Structures are given as structure tokens and as C-alpha cells.
């Protein structure tokens, strides 16, 4: 690793008070116990249940004559709850009312499909969080990666296997470039990554919007900002056959989770990342280049966000639009925090979120509830995770040792 050129400049990324605060918040979240995280999810689902009851038509109708026949309201509430949770279960896990086996397990494969981009992006963000970087830029990194990968997918003509491989690598490179910029700026000038990545999200989105006005990116004969469909050879193969949407990207995401585990727990690079994240001053004193860590972390996180883009353009959507990223880049922040930035946790959190997403349509059709309930539940999870003391006081959990004041 040649490092001296960029590294030990006096531009020691100065840690302003703001930085310390970000790190403090990050650490607080990362150290919250698994129990707190699980309880946060439980609390969110419970409050989500309350909302479901009040959003339900029958409940509101019965509530009009609540004082003459309160029983009606309560039974309507119960019915609303049961129907909502049943719909969620049937939309996200398995559907027991289906006649066929395919129909029975389809919801879960849908959940995994929805989880795939979240796993990729969440893994990348998790690396950043553990290295002390609050990367908000997965959204932009995902889009740039998706744009490059999609272009390779529809504009180039390559043989099977190779085409997919090149397109996937293209996605990763696109994201990595978009991640490199804030990493480099932080390392070189101390520019705060939160601000730079947020700005780059806008630049990325508008860049893709502009690209989609160019002939090279637009579908022939169309004026809409939508690209041609990527070639079959560049699409992730469906791993459970054509009856399911689950594609190879999911297995790649799981492989990446193992890769990230190895990187963070076993490699010298991950050792540097963790040291720089926990105590940059000690890392520097021990001869590590904290600046180099920042750049590497952002490049790797960007590449993983780019792969999240591949799950969209080479997997589920097959085309590039300005809506390709959806809210994946932001949901992935929650996923990474919920998974405490550990690979296993991130995968599980991504599956939870994928499930919520997959349940959305069923919730609407079957239980007649607005899809927004899902977003509210997601938002509640964020709220609870960000306030571990709140969760602990609700469930009367003991405070972790590090929050106790130990005076000399």
C-alpha cells in the first residue's frame, strides 16, 4: 500500500466538536444491545398496530356511537389488528391460503428480493459507521453505480456470464467513484462527510436525470426519462426459476456479507478502519493513516451501494430511471443502524425491511390500509433505535455499563 502521498499531510482530518458528537451518537447506537434493538422493533410494531386501528374504516364508523355501544368499537379494533397483521404475514412471510406451493412461499422470496439492495447498501454504510464516518450518500452512490451498470447492460453486447460480470463490476465502480469523492475530501481537507455526501446525492440524482435526456441513455423512440431494458445476458439470473423474482443478486449480497465480516474482523485493513472509528488519535499515534482509512472506507461503501444499484437495474427493474434508487439509500441507513453495523445484523434487518416492503401491497389490498403504515413503522423503528434510553425505560431494561458514571 503506497500511502505517503495522500496521508500524513498536516491536513490531519481535524476532529471538530461536531465530529465528536457524530461519533458519540454513532457509538451510542452501535453499542446498544441486541435486546434494545429487538424491543425497538416490537415497540414500533405495537404502535403501528395502534395506527392501524385508527386508520381502519370500521373502527371509525363504530367509534361514532362508541358511548352507546363501546363493544362494537373494540371488536372492530380487534378485527382491524388481526386483518392487518394477517396481511403483513401473508405479504411478507408465507401465504397459507394459497392453493399452490409457489403461491405459498412466494411472499418470502419477494421479501428476500426486496431485501437484496438493502443488504448491499446497509453493509457499506455499516463499515462507515464502524470507521466513524456517517455516510448519508448511499442514495447517490447507488444511482451512479446503477447508471454505469445499466449503460453497460443495454449499450454493450457481450457474451453470457461476461456481460453480467462486467455490468456488475460497472455498478460497483460507479458507486466507488461517488464514494471516493467525499472520502478524499475528508482525508485531504477535513470536509465533513455528512454534508458532502448529502450534496452528492443531489448531484448524482440530477446527473442521472440529465443522462436520461441524452440519446445514448434514452429508449429509442421515447422522450421519457427511461433507459432501454438491459440485455438478457446482463441480467441477474432468477435463482428459483421464472415463477419467482428472486435473483442471483441475493446470493451475491450474502457473499458480500461474509466478505465484509472478514474485512472488518480479520483483515488488517478492517483493523485500521475500526481503530480509526473508535479512537482516531490513538490510531494515528500507532502509525496508522486515518486519512487513508477514510478514503478506503468510502470507496468500499460506495462500491457496495453501487451493487445495491445492480440489484435494481440488473435484477428487479431492468431499466434505469430517476426513481431507480427509490428510498433504498436512506432505508439502508436504518438497516445498518438496526443491524448495529454488523454483517449478520444488517442482513437480518434488511430482511425485516424487505418484509415490510413486500407486505405493503397486501396490506393495501387485503386489509384496506394505506401503504404509508409501513413507512410509519420504519420511521418509528428509527426513532426508537436513536433513543435507546427511551426503549430501555419503556421495557425497564438495565442501562449498559458504559452509561454509568464512574468517578474516581
Amino acid at each position, binding site marked *: 500500500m503506497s500511502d505517503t502521498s495522500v496521508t500524513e499531510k498536516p491536513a490531519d482530518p481535524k476532529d471538530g466538536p461536531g465530529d465528536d458528537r457524530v461519533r458519540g451518537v454513532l457509538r451510542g447506537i452501535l453499542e446498544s444491545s441486541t435486546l434494545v434493538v429487538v424491543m425497538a422493533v416490537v415497540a414500533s410494531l405495537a404502535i403501528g398496530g395502534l395506527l392501524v386501528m385508527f386508520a381502519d374504516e370500521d373502527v371509525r364508523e363504530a367509534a361514532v356511537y362508541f358511548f352507546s355501544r363501546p363493544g362494537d368499537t373494540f371488536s372492530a379494533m380487534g378485527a382491524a389488528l388481526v386483518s392487518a397483521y394477517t396481511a403483513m404475514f401473508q405479504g411478507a412471510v408465507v401465504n397459507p391460503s394459497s392453493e399452490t406451493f409457489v403461491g405459498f412461499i412466494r411472499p418470502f422470496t419477494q421479501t428476500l428480493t426486496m431485501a437484496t439492495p438493502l443488504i448491499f447498501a446497509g453493509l457499506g454504510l455499516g463499515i462507515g459507521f464502524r470507521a466513524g464516518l456517517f455516510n448519508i450518500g448511499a442514495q447517490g452512490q447507488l444511482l451512479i453505480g446503477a447508471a454505469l451498470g445499466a449503460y453497460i447492460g443495454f449499450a454493450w453486447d457481450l457474451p453470457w456470464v461476461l456481460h453480467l460480470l462486467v455490468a456488475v463490476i460497472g455498478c460497483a465502480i460507479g458507486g466507488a467513484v461517488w464514494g471516493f469523492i467525499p472520502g478524499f475530501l475528508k482525508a485531504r481537507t477535513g470536509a465533513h462527510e455528512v454534508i458532502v455526501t448529502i450534496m452528492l446525492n443531489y448531484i448524482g440524482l440530477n446527473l442521472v436525470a440529465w443522462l436520461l435526456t441524452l440519446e445514448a441513455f434514452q429508449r429509442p423512440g421515447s422522450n421519457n426519462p427511461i433507459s432501454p431494458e438491459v440485455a438478457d445476458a446482463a441480467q441477474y439470473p432468477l435463482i428459483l426459476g421464472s415463477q419467482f423474482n428472486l435473483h442471483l443478486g441475493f446470493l451475491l449480497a450474502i457473499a458480500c456479507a461474509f466478505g465484509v465480516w472478514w474485512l472488518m474482523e480479520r483483515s488488517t485493513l478492517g483493523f485500521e478502519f475500526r*481503530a480509526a472509528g473508535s479512537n482516531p488519535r490513538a490510531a494515528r499515534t500507532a502509525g496508522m493513516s486515518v486519512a487513508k482509512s477514510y478514503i478506503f472506507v468510502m470507496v468500499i461503501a460506495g462500491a457496495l451501494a453501487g451493487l445495491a444499484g445492480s440489484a435494481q437495474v440488473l435484477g428487479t427493474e431492468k431499466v434505469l430511471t430517476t426513481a431507480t434508487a427509490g428510498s433504498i439509500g436512506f432505508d439502508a441507513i436504518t438497516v445498518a443502524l438496526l443491524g448495529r453495523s454488523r454483517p449478520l445484523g444488517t442482513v437480518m434487518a434488511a430482511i425485516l425491511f424487505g418484509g415490510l416492503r413486500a407486505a405493503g401491497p397486501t396490506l393495501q389490498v387485503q386489509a384496506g390500509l394505506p401503504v404509508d403504515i409501513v413507512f410509519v413503522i420504519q420511521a418509528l423503528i428509527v426513532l426508537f433505535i436513536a433513543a435507546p434510553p427511551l426503549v430501555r425505560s419503556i421495557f425497564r431494561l438495565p442501562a449498559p455499563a458504559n452509561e454509568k458514571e464512574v468517578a474516581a
Partner: protein
Amino acid sequence: MKLELRGITKKFGDFTANDAIDLVVEPGTIHALLGENGAGKSTLMNVLFGLYDADAGEILMDDDAVTFVGPGDAMAAGIGMVHQHFMLVPVFSVAENVMLGHEQVKGPAKLLDVGAARDKVRELSDRFGFDIDPDALVENLSVGAQQRVEIIKALSRDAEVLILDEPTAVLTPQETDELLEIVRQLRDSGTAVVLITHKLREVKAVADTITVIRRGKVVGTAEPSASQEELASLMVGRDVSMTVDKGAADPGEPVLRVENVTVVNEASGVTHVDDVSLEVRAGEILAVAGVQGNGQTELAEAILGLLPTAHGQIILDGNVLSGRSIRQNLDAGIGFVPEDRTEDGVVADFTVANNLILDLYDREPYSRRGAIDPQVVRTHAEEQVEKFDVRTTSTQALTGALSGGNQQKVVLARELARELKVLIASQPTRGLDVGSIEFVHKRIIEERDKGVAVIIVSSELDEVYALADRIAVMYHGKVVDIVAPDTDRDTLGLMMAGAHSKEEAA
């Protein structure tokens, strides 16, 4: 006023900081509270001062039970406290600081009565010979003078019990002597003084009664006539020798040369190290003495490369170091024990094993081709923990859970695991218990005897005397002089205050 603490117990979670402590402080006496860092002295005083609530026990003043909800209550009851870190507003005058929180007003417009405060300062200053100008700005005063302002502040509120928390940590030897003289005067005027310290010499010099605290419990009382060894073993709970056996140095060739080095803080423009030149030979210990904040820390950091040098050069074994990365300097054979071990020395939420390889992790055998070998790391950690007597539940325990002394052993073990040419240790025993100090000193002398050139930066004269083969004294960023280790305390003290020694360096 007689102060009595009965059965004071204070717990933080599972940790008992104070365990049924009884203490009686008679008026007109100096009561020394002696104990290692973390023994619970400061907690006890914070309970007394109303900053913490005791879980059990009571406080009696002149045999009446009292309860303090906050420092205000304690002050009103006649207790004054001088904290280790001063609580003064630098841009205020002495008089303004003294009246802060206790402002008197005059006239219908309720204007601040600075005049009254000024008179009060002058009166107290004259009475005890403090030599403090009430109109001087606090930021322009020396550390010793600031401390006297704190004492005036306490006395101006009619404190009859004065608590001094580690008052000498920031003072030169002369200032320390002056402070001890002040403390004696206060006692003679009837004030009860509680002196919190871990420095045996001071205790022996002024205390009338000594209470020793260990792990939150009172383990005994002693007479000031007790020997330092007796007090130390009471403090630590086992026999300790106060002096480390140290043979004569056998210095070889100069290994590290510092030539005209200047270090300037880029942000503030303050010159911390001003044209310093010195050399260290193989097999000798050069102690850099001085009151904290006179550029010693910056000099040490500049040698490692943590701080850039404005000019001058640092030469290790004939190679100029300036401009190279810290990593290259470590590889060139510099071992570095930073002054602030929790900030710069260890990663608190890494395991002990990982901290032991914090600057070795990418070398064989700890890692190969970018992959760390956890088995080797663990074995290495177990060996080092054994060898350096690190008290930890496991090598996989988090380093932040270790005591300061054990963290320092981790740092030392890590740095000494490499082949060194130069060892730079800043305040290597700050905050350590007597037992750990002895251990750390032994290791440092062993390194010297192996032919390593050693630089010790210390503001504790006892440590300087225990280790040094030569002593460089720094004042205001300059090396005042380099003198022999048998230079007496008074001379060193004067040099630490900037006076040049007449003696020539050895």
C-alpha cells in the same frame, strides 16, 4: 468547625466508590486524605460538597447532622473546595471571579459592588501574604497565583473547612512549598484543611492527621512521622520499595539528535517548542523535566512526527526524521508512550489483545498478506499479559475496563515488543498506583540497560530523580539547561521557573 463523616457509602452501579467511610476533621488541623488515583478520595469529597448524593451515611458539622443538596448548601455551611481543575473565568479580574455567584449589589440601581469584592480580596491577600492584585485578569496570573485566587474565593465565603483536591499537580516545587506554607497559616488561623493527595512527601511535610483510603475504604490512619514506605504500603496494600535499583549508565554513541527544533501551533500561532537542541545516547535516560505546559509534550510528539516541526531537524541514527510518516518513524525504531494514554495510547473499545498489536497488526506473524491471524494475536496477548502483569479478566476484555495502571502496562508492553532504538515516554506513571510505578520504572531501566536511548518526559521530580542519567529542564519552550542527576531539588525548581543554572551539563 468540626466536620464529621459517618458511614458514607456511595455506589455507581455495582461499583462501590466509598464504602462506609468515617472521617473526623478537627478545626485548626490539616487532615491529609491519602490514596491512589481511583481510591475514592474525590468521590468522598464530592459527596461532602453536595455534588453527589450519598447512598448511606451522614455528614455532621459541629455534631449537627446536615444535608447538602448542592454545592451552594455546602458553601453556605462553611465548606470551601479548591478543585484540581480551577473554576475561574480567565477574562475576569480576580475580584470579579471572587464575587462570582455571590454578587453583592449597591444602590437603587443594584449595580455590582466590585469595590467590596476588591476590598475583600485585598484583605485576605494581606492577611495570608498571598500577594494578589484584585484587578489583575486571571488569565495573566501564573498557575500558582490562580490557585491562591481559588483559595481566596473559598475564604471569602467564610469557609471554615477548606478542601484542596490534588492541589500540587500543576505547581513547580517552589510553588508547592509556598502552597504548603499557606496551608499551615490557614490551619493556624483555625481553618480545618482537608488535603487530598497521593504525594507522600507533601503529606509528611504538612499533615497533622493522615487517613489512608484504598478501594473506597478507610484502611488506616497514620502519624506524619510514619516513613514513606509505611505510607506507601498502606496505600497499596502490600510492601513497595520506593526506589528502583538502578546501576550506573553506560552510554554509547548518540542515537537521537534534536537540532534547533521549533514547533508552532498552526492554528493559534503559539510557539510551543523554541529552538531546542539535545541528544540522547544509547543506554542512557534523558529526563525532560518541567512544569506541565512548557513544551515537553510537544517536543515528544514532534520527535514521533505527530506534530510538524516549523524548523530544525530530528536525526535518528544519522537519518533525518522530519517529513516522514509516523509509521516510518515507528519502523525506524522509535517506541512511544503517549502522555494521555486513554486518548492516544489505547483504543478503549478494542480488546486487550488488539491493543497489544495496535502498531504491530500488519507485520508478520500477527498478519500475513492482509489477514490477521487471531490465534497468534491471542497467544501474543497471553504472553504479554503474563510478562507485564496486566490485571485483566481476559485478553479479550475491553481495554477501557482496565484501570489506568493496567492500560499503561498494555501500552508499554506493546511498545517494548518491537526492537527499539529510542523510547520516548511522556508522563509514564501519571495516575498510576505506587506498585505500577515501581514496575514501569523497572521496565524502563531494563530498556536502557539493553542499550536503548530513553527520553522520559515528566513533571514529577520524584520520577525524574528515580530515572534520569541526565536532566533537561524546559521552560517556555526552551531547554533552560541540561544538568546532572544529582542536582538538588531547589536548583531544579528554580530552573523549572526559568532561572538558569550555573552548573554546566554533565
